[in-house]
């Protein structure tokens, strides 16, 4: 099988590390070779963060380059726009509709583009936009929007739901498991 690539993008602190661990465990359980590449340290402090997940029969480079991602999962609209060039032609973009102003916008040095999702769709890209934050809050905490998005993405991938449930159980501490299962279900039912 040709190597497949999934990118998870967002703002430092939104929980992309947990999301990548869940997907990584799903893929490992299906017998693929898997690489998951994360960024730690300074860029995690509210900066633009990206995590790469690659899988297939053989995976070499752990990073994803422009035009290579089969799926981009974005936790924030501006980040979807930023990382759009990494999407392969015919790839899928799953994005939360959440907006977080970056410091240059807060300072007035730059403007947050309007209608980002519409403009990306106008480029012929398949976009699935979900209000993951509201769904996460319905599940019990705004912090679970990462798992809501996992629920959305699970429908774009060929694996059984039970495989995802098993990965959730592996990656989420027991006391938060019910909440995250609810968030996942809301994501899976979205759209």
């Amino acid at each position, binding site marked *: 099988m040709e190597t497949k690539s999934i990118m998870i993008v967002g703002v430092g602190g939104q929980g992309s590390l947990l999301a990548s661990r869940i997907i990584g465990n799903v893929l490992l359980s299906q017998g693929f070779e898997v690489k998951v590449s994360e960024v730690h340290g300074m860029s995690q402090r509210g900066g633009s963060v990206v995590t790469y997940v690659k899988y297939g029969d053989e995976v070499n480079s752990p990073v994803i380059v422009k035009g290579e991602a089969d799926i981009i999962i974005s936790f924030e609209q501006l980040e979807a726009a930023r990382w759009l060039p990494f999407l392969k032609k015919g790839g899928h973009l799953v994005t939360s509709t959440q907006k977080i102003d970056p410091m240059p916008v807060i300072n007035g040095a730059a403007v947050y*583009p309007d209608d980002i999702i519409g403009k990306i769709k106008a480029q012929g890209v398949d976009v699935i936009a979900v209000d993951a934050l509201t769904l996460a809050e319905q599940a019990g905490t705004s912090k679970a929007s990462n798992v809501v998005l996992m629920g959305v993405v699970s429908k774009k991938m060929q694996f059984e739901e039970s495989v995802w449930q098993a990965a959730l159980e592996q990656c989420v501490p027991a006391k938060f498991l019910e909440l995250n299962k609810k968030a996942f279900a809301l994501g899976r039912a979205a759209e």
Partner: protein
Amino acid sequence: MKKLMLGNEAFARGLYEAGCKIASSYPGTPSTEITEEVAKYDEVYAEWAPNEKVAMEVALGASVAGARSFCAMKHVGLNVAADPLYTAGYTGVTGGMVIAVADDPGMHSSQNEQDSRHHAIASKVMMIEPSDSAECKEFAKAAFDLSEQFDTPVIVRMSTRVAHSQSAVELCDRVEKDLIPYEKNIQKFVMMPGNAIRRHPQVEQRIEDIRKYAETSPLNRVEYNDTKIGVIAAGISYQYARDALGSKASYLKLGIVNPLPVEIIKDFCQKCETVYVIEQLDDIIETHCRKNGLNVHGKDTFSLLGEISQSIVREKILGETAEFTEFPENVPVRPPVMCAGCPHRGLFYCLSKLGVMVSGDIGCYTLGATAPLCAMDTTICMGASISGLHGFNKARGAESEKKSVAVIGDSTFMHSGMTGLVNIAYNATNSTVIILDNSITGMTGHQQNPTTGKNLKGDPAAAVNLVDLCHAIGIKSVRVVDPYHMAETEAVIKEELAKDEPSVIISRRPCALLKYVKHNPPLKCDHDKCVGCKQCLKIGCPAISIHDKKMTIDHTQCVGCGICTEMCKVGAIG
């Protein structure tokens, strides 16, 4: 059993399986998790040392005692530990000694992009480099065997993408290693001139012996495919090349990066038509090839700067580029910022308002240099804030002393700041030093340090009392402030700057991300009161923005620290 593991986690597993007994490190991205992970194995004693030099000396001491020992650091940490490294190269070891050094090409979280291989060459110490998590584990284990076989510390060079990528690792059992009996050996371990002069030829002989070993070692391997293109690479660069070129090229994958073999490289170059050396940062393998009369491509094709990737290899060697879609408008950058509720924010706002020269240091608080606070003038390396301020004030005199401060975190102060403070007291400048005590090592992801009262395992430990320590150093004026109270903080800074003596201000408030820190409910802006004056934006809080000329607070980020309420002249925030 196969498990998905970070390179750093797999490295720790290798240490465990190899029977490592002692680990001592100072945190530094991207090396930190190796020591955090190895601490989870009860069979291994692991600690956070105050700095990398101490850590390496602890590891060497444990090796002399007959234990397999380990220390980890980031690339710049190896500069701090260079002193023991270069002489440990002379003494050699008793129990195997492994040093992990993590380079950060692309500077994801570092102040420079140095190539640690230079240290291995200069110290004449063996260095090996893994390229994925499975190799991290295997190389860690091999490093101990090689260390004992060749009587040398062995450095394992990591890089950001290897350290922070997860891939599958096969787990094995630990093989317990008994302590090697201790025997006093003055000629080997007392490095005074008369002894060291007899060790040096052994060092030269050893590096030649390891070079011979490298010619046949399984750590170096050749993969022949199409021989029109030959690639010589180590570590992550090999993965990029393999990704880009697949079976269109042949590969010489080097696991041993110091010393480099000669014969297998010559043989490979003879068998391939065009040979590319693909290496991140400096041209070390390339220079070695040229020194041995081999005509290879290297930095004529690839950059000395930043990271390589499969797309760069594909473009440079095959001339292929990928198709992609651009967003049709300018996308504003999103640089890292201090978190909402960060205790450093209030302090930096005061410094920004006072317009003083700020001699900065390494940590989350380096973000005080970014807009809108812009309250930092210099950042060089761990500890340089305090010593640099002393030099600045000696050069510019008494006027400068009233208009300048150093800022340094609690962990960085313990690492190498306090010697600078000794210098201020001893050599007398009326400098003002601010210790940003957030009760943790923040930037690297919350590690304990000698001021926090806990050790690496989270157990209670002796805590350095910063106030007493500063007094003992000879600083009489030591004040403690809460940076959430900006008016008081500003007043104290002004008072200490005015004094004709050196002073220390401890700006104390735990990191807002610490689990035990209780947050207040998010604040709200009363839009009937808000006049849209934008004063609140001056503190650079990521939770605050202006929409339709009114301030809004992002409830998902706000932790209710309240410093924005001090900025609001109309009392709209509550």
